[in-house]
């Protein structure tokens, strides 16, 4: 009786965390007044962030705990009712997809949706899926994901308020103002993400998984242009394909193995679990936009920036990673793991090459997202304790810095009218604050001593330990290309060009709250890195692998040197600026063969006329700019995935 009560308190809290965003979404759906919307979004976001932080502090460091849920409340079967409720919602989602598919004549999406929904419904109604008494659970990994979702998600919702105002101001009549819908969807999404990470039961997880797919679909189609609709359906069918994989995994686990819980599946010693595992991996690969399913994420960039930041970079695509981390212990050393690892590594390399050719900031960010997710996926696929440690850190750092970058690109676009990287030339002179935030975000993505690079480094070390030379090579080459596209971006930002047009920085306070919050988080994460590793991430690895002495590959000496490096860099930059202010240096103009007209932007041509000088970064478009590269890579990845799946399934049948 006692344990029931204790369990209940925690369960109610979790239920509240999941349900509250949905309630907030309903409120948003009916708010039409801008001021009311602003206030309600602030309150809801603050509530979600506060509640999650309190929850995390209360449950910090606790062992993995399953919450028994087979209780009745005053004779009322809560779980049974919730299950039926979910089923109804699933059919509603199916209805929405079917309706929109027929409306836009994309029938395949409807087909995929109907198949999986009916299959799962049959599973539930036939009583095959109810021999379970644990629905929710919580451990340190859940807590990390929750914090990511709540803090990053909450801030992005705040950002969205300011952004959408600008957005509709800029787009005027061409895009219908559906701000209520947009904000509502963001909150629905937050609730669904909480649902995914708290669910122990596969069917519940699947339910929330489908919601995120549909939300993503609806947000990509926000503007309702032809391009947006096409892209949204591409995202939909790929994610639904993953959903089908998920459904098959559930069905196989339930019918053949009588397993209904993710944790039980991973712990099972039965060799045939590789079949549900490869199906779940398929779901995760589609969600995380790995090759051959990367194209949906590129298409998703037509959506307004907050949704790109929240769904298509910071959190939703991490759902796939989350699932992979959960099943990683079962993938160690088998064919599923190998397939996933190689696809991840390959995606990392190919996407980082592709990122070089784009001038559009959002596209570069999208490819970089795919690329980094590939690295994390590769870590999960290798599936040893060291790589999981790296995967979790990569996930955290990527979440914060990518969200920061998307938001700064969005704000720069609204301020300068362009998100082209070439147009960001000299941003440090024109909009110093935005440029610094963006620089910190990029530095966080790839420079030593910042987080991403540390994690990448330990990933490399772990790959060597795992003896996977192919991954080592992919990582080595992919790192070089990553270095290239980020360096040229930063170098544009830091050009001290004399500004030509000075416009007012129109970034609103809402946007600054979020960007500032992210910047602070980014720096803080780098500084508390050793602490996070010891108190939060090491226990996760221990509990996932059932060991108690996990040591990360990075020694204390290295961490000390890294902290030293951060301090040195900071000191140098501060001292440097002080010195240059004190010491007067004579200013001169750039060397331009003596024909500069004086403003560094024009020169005297052969006929004595003034000509404009323009210099751009290299995009190597004649070398790698063709679509063939991507098509070939997609084909290779698809072939690899099919061969891996066939061999896996054939191996155990």
């Amino acid at each position, binding site marked *: 009786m006692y344990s029931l009560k204790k369990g209940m308190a925690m369960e109610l809290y979790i239920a509240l965390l999941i349900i509250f965003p949905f309630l907030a979404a309903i409120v948003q759906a009916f708010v039409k007044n801008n001021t009311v919307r602003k206030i309600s979004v602030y309150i809801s976001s603050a509530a979600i962030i506060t509640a999650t932080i309190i929850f995390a502090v209360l449950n910090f460091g606790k062992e993995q705990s399953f919450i028994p849920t087979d209780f009745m409340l005053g004779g009322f079967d809560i779980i049974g009712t919730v299950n039926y409720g979910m089923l109804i919602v699933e059919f509603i989602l199916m209805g929405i997809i079917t309706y929109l598919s027929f409306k836009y004549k994309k029938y395949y999406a409807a087909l995929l949706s109907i198949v999986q929904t009916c299959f799962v419904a049959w599973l539930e109604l036939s009583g095959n899926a109810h021999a379970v008494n644990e629905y929710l659970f919580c451990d340190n990994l859940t807590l990390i994901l929750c914090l990511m979702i709540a803090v990053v998600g909450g801030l992005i919702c705040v950002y969205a308020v300011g952004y959408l105002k600008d957005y509709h101001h800029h787009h005027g009549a061409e895009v219908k103002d559906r701000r209520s819908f947009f904000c509502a969807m963001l909150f629905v999404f937050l609730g669904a993400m909480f649902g995914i990470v708290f669910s122990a039961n596969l069917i519940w997880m699947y339910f929330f998984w489908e919601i995120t797919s549909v939300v993503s679909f609806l947000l990509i189609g926000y503007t309702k242009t032809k391009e947006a609709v096409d892209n949204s359906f591409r995202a939909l069918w790929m994610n639904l394909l993953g959903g089908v994989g998920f459904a098959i995994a559930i069905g196989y686990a339930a019918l053949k193995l009588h397993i209904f819980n993710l944790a039980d599946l991973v712990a099972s010693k039965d060799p045939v679990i590789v079949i549900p595992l490869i199906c779940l991996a398929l779901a995760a690969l589609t969600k995380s936009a790995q090759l051959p399913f990367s194209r949906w994420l590129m298409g998703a960039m037509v959506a307004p920036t907050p949704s790109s930041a929240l769904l298509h970079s910071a959190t939703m695509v991490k759902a796939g990673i989350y699932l992979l981390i959960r099943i990683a212990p079962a993938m160690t050393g088998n064919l599923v793991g190998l397939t996933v690892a190689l696809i991840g590594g390959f995606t990392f390399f190919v996407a980082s090459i592709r990122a070089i050719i784009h001038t559009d900031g959002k596209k570069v960010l999208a490819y970089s997202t795919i690329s980094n997710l590939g690295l994390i996926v590769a870590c999960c696929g290798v599936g040893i304790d060291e790589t999981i440690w790296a995967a979790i850190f990569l996930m955290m750092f990527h979440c914060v810095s990518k969200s920061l970058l998307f938001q700064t690109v969005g704000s720069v676009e609204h301020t300068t009218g362009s998100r082209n990287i070439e147009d960001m030339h000299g941003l440090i002179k024109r909009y110093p604050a935005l440029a610094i935030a963006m620089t910190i975000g990029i530095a966080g993505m790839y420079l030593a001593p910042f987080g991403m690079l540390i994690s990448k*480094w330990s990933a490399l070390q772990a790959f*060597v330990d795992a003896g996977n030379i192919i991954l080592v090579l992919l990582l*080595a080459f992919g790192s070089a290309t990553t270095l290239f596209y980020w360096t040229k971006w930063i*170098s544009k930002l*830091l050009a*001290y060009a004399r500004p030509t047009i000075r416009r007012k920085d129109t970034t609103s306070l809402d946007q600054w709250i979020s960007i500032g919050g992210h910047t602070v988080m980014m720096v803080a994460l780098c500084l508390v890195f050793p602490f996070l590793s010891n108190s939060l991430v090491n226990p996760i690895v221990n509990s996932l692998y059932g060991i108690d002495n996990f040591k990360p590959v990075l020694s204390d000496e290295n961490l000390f040197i890294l902290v030293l490096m951060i301090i040195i860099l900071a000191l140098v930059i501060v001292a440097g600026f002080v010195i240059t202010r004190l010491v007067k240096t004579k200013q001169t103009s750039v*060397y*331009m063969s003596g024909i500069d007209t004086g403003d560094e932007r024009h020169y005297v041509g052969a006929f004595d006329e003034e000509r404009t000088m323009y210099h751009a970064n290299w995009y190597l478009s004649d070398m790698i700019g063709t679509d063939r590269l991507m098509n070939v890579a997609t084909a290779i990845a698809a072939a690899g995935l099919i061969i891996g799946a066939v061999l896996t399934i054939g191996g155990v049948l």
Partner: protein
Amino acid sequence: MLVYRIISAVIYLILGGIVAGLLAGIDRKLSARLQGRRGPSVLQPFYDVAKLFSKETLALNHGQFVIAFSFLLLIVFTGVLFFAGVDILLVFLALSTAAMFLVFAATSSNSAMSTMGAQREMMQMLAYEPMVLITAVGFYMSTQIMNGGEGSFKIIDIATGDLPSIVYLPGIFLGFLFILTIKFRKSPFDISTSHHAHQELVKGVTTDLSGRNLGMIEIAHWYENTFLLGVVALFFLSNDWWSIPLAVGAAALVYFIETIIDNVSARVKWELMVKLAWGVTIVCGGLNLLVLEYIF
């Protein structure tokens, strides 16, 4: 052991620049002799840098000084870490961060020549970076074999193995020599900047730096070169005393070979450089790693 590590780091800090400065002087003398000229004094590089510091510094912006200074400091920091025998991956990562600052020093100026030089510098980084990482992995795997299982990225462990690492890493050594030409900015890969006159990009990345700022970059290059020769020497170090003269001799020989290559080859286009460097990396580095993994 810690004492030796600190001593070697301090020696590097004091002598690192001087040694490479002298080497640069010898390089110029040697090049001159190869071309049938008398050539400048061996101390010429020191005269040059001393002059740069005594001259007026013309800057385009405040950023230039900060960036050039950061570049110098990070390079020295990298070398000190290397000679203190810490994790070699950490050293290489610090090196690539430092290299970034050279690019920023050039692009901060809004000048066509510098910007073009910076783009080429980035192409150089793209070309050599994979081999650098693979070199670190190769060292790790050689210690794995020597210690019978437990590998180490620590330079101190690599330098005190039972055998010189080159025994296990001939392919990686060749690959590293190849990218060393890029890192030394020697012909045929002196694409971003060059010590030779009359190139199409003036002085590439350093075009718009002058006086003190240029002097700092020059000193940084010295420290970088000593560090790179240190990596070459690392291939030959083991726990036997004779490995030390062997390593020093090898480093000197490599430098000599680089000088000769510089004199007998013409600059290539950057496309060819990237293709060659990546090809050599895959063939020499990749094969070597595969052999280590599956045969030993």
